[in-house]
Every structure is written in C-alpha cells, then in structure tokens.
C-alpha cells in the first residue's frame, strides 16, 4: 500500500474531516464578508443610525441559538423514541452551541440597549423571557454534567430539552403580546420590511455565514461528545482491568499477603 493510500485509510486524529474543512473555509470567508459589509460598506440606518451594525451580530446569533434549541428538542424526542446514543449526543451538542450563541445574543443586545435606551438592561417582557430561556438551557447543561448512568442522563435531559423549547415562541412573541421597550421582531417576523439595499443584503449574508458556522461547530461538537463517551468507556475498561490484575496479584500472594484491599 502506498503512503498516500495509507494516509487516506488512516483514522483522523481530530474531529475534523474533509467536509468540515470545506465548511470551515466557507464560514471563514462568509464571516470576513460580513465584517466588510457590516462595518464598512453598509450605510447607517435612517432610524437606528450606526447601531444597526450591532444588529448584524444580534439577529444571526439569536437565529442560530433558536435553531440549535429546536434541534435539541427534535433530537430529544428522537432519543426518547429510538434510545440511541446518537440522538442524545446530538441534543446535548446542539444545546451547548445554542447557549454560546444565546449568551452572545444577550451581550450584543446589552450593547445595543446601552446606546439606544441608555442602560444595559431593563426588566421588560422580552428580556425577562430571554433570561428564563437562557437559564433553562444552562440548567439543561448542568443536568447533563451530573455524573450518572447514561440512559438516565439522556432521559432526564431529553425531557428538559423538549419542555424548554416551548419558551422560544413565548420569547419571540413577547414583543407582540406585552408592551415593552424591545423593538419589534426582525427575524421570522421576518427581517424588517423597511430594510433594503446593502443593509438587507448584509443581514441575509450574516444569517447565512452564521448558519454555516453553526453547522461547523455542531459537527465538531458532536464528534467531541462522541469521543468523550468512547474515552470514558476506555477509562472504565482500563480501571476494571487494573482491579482484576490487582485482585489476581493479591489472590496469588496467599493468605498471608492476600488481605483484601479497599
């Protein structure tokens, strides 16, 4: 077998593959284009002024977070149905990526709030429901980190993953249902109908680039979770082998030296 062929058949030494490298390259180019359009080419908005540039980060991060949480819910349902490790790890991986993006959404919103409202935070309906949603998924990740039997962990977290997603439409519609400070919906509302030209293009470009980035992160995070489970199994097997070897050694040492060790 040639060196090249051997290289092709060798197992990867990371979570990367040809597909993820292509995905990563597309995401990088996309984000560079977002930076160019969002910070340089796109003009200030007639109403929002320069703060529209914060929304080029805020809107895609919240879109990715919502998508991630929906994937978690769907994978949780699939886990309760199929009971396979794949769905459990997919749900967990997507939730973690979603929490990262949702934290960024909140942070960007605070920056926008400081410029527009004069304060970083106000306890108005959208922000209250956002906080509840964020804390729910933090709780989901905490539950997953509790050491327990995988099937129990998968079942409990799947139930939380399904229940938590209910808060997304509530958070999303909060600006319509209750009077608050937050501006009306710009995603799935959908994008502001008055937006046009390079601003509209930049918004869609940013959404697309962040979705590709999300796909890249999710694949890598899933593979990492998969490796984590396999490594844990390896560690368990090694520990059991050590115990067996220990038992054999103390057994062969005879009654004098064969006292069981705790």
């Amino acid at each position, binding site marked *: 077998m040639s060196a090249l062929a051997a290289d092709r058949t*060798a*197992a*990867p*030494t*990371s*979570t*990367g*593959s040809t*597909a993820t490298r292509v995905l990563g390259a597309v995401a990088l180019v996309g*984000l560079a284009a977002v*930076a160019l359009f*969002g*910070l340089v080419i796109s003009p200030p908005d007639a109403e929002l*002024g*320069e*703060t529209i*540039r*914060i929304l080029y*980060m*805020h809107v895609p*991060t919240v879109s990715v977070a919502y998508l991630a949480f929906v994937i978690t819910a769907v994978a949780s349902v699939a886990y309760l149905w199929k009971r396979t490790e794949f769905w459990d790890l997919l749900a967990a991986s997507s939730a973690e990526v979603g929490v*990262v993006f949702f*934290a*960024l959404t909140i*942070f*960007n919103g605070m*920056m*926008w709030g*400081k*410029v527009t409202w004069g304060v970083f935070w106000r306890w108005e309906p959208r922000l209250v429901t956002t906080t509840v949603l964020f804390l729910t998924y933090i709780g989901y990740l905490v539950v997953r980190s509790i050491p327990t039997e995988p099937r129990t962990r998968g079942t409990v977290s799947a139930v939380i993953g399904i229940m938590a997603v209910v808060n997304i439409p509530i958070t999303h519609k909060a600006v319509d249902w209750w009077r608050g400070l937050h501006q009306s919906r710009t995603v799935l509302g959908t994008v502001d109908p008055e937006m046009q030209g390079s601003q509209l293009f930049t918004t869609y470009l940013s959404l697309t680039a962040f979705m590709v*980035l999300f796909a*890249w*992160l999710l694949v*890598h*995070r899933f*593979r*990492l979770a*998969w*490796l*984590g489970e*396999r*490594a844990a199994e*390896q*560690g368990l097997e090694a520990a059991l082998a050590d115990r067996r070897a220990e038992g054999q050694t103390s057994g062969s040492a005879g009654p004098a030296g064969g006292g069981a060790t705790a």
Partner: protein
Amino acid sequence: MSTNAYIAIAWAVTFAVIALYAAWIVRRGRELSRRVPEEDRRWM
C-alpha cells in the same frame, strides 16, 4: 463611551468568543482522539 465603541465591543466579543469556543473544541478533540481506538473515530 461612543456608539462606535459599543459596536466595536459587540463585534470583537462575538468573534472572540466564537473563536475561543471553536479552538477549545478542536484542541479537546485532538486530545481525546489520542485516547480512543482508531475504529471509534472514523468520520463520514
């Protein structure tokens, strides 16, 4: 602080957090790959 400063912070923090998170995933993936048998890390 000026509006531009808040915009710069928003963008910088977003890109920095994502870059750090991605770097952590990749680095941890490499570490775990060394501890896992070949047959368990064949991706599509």
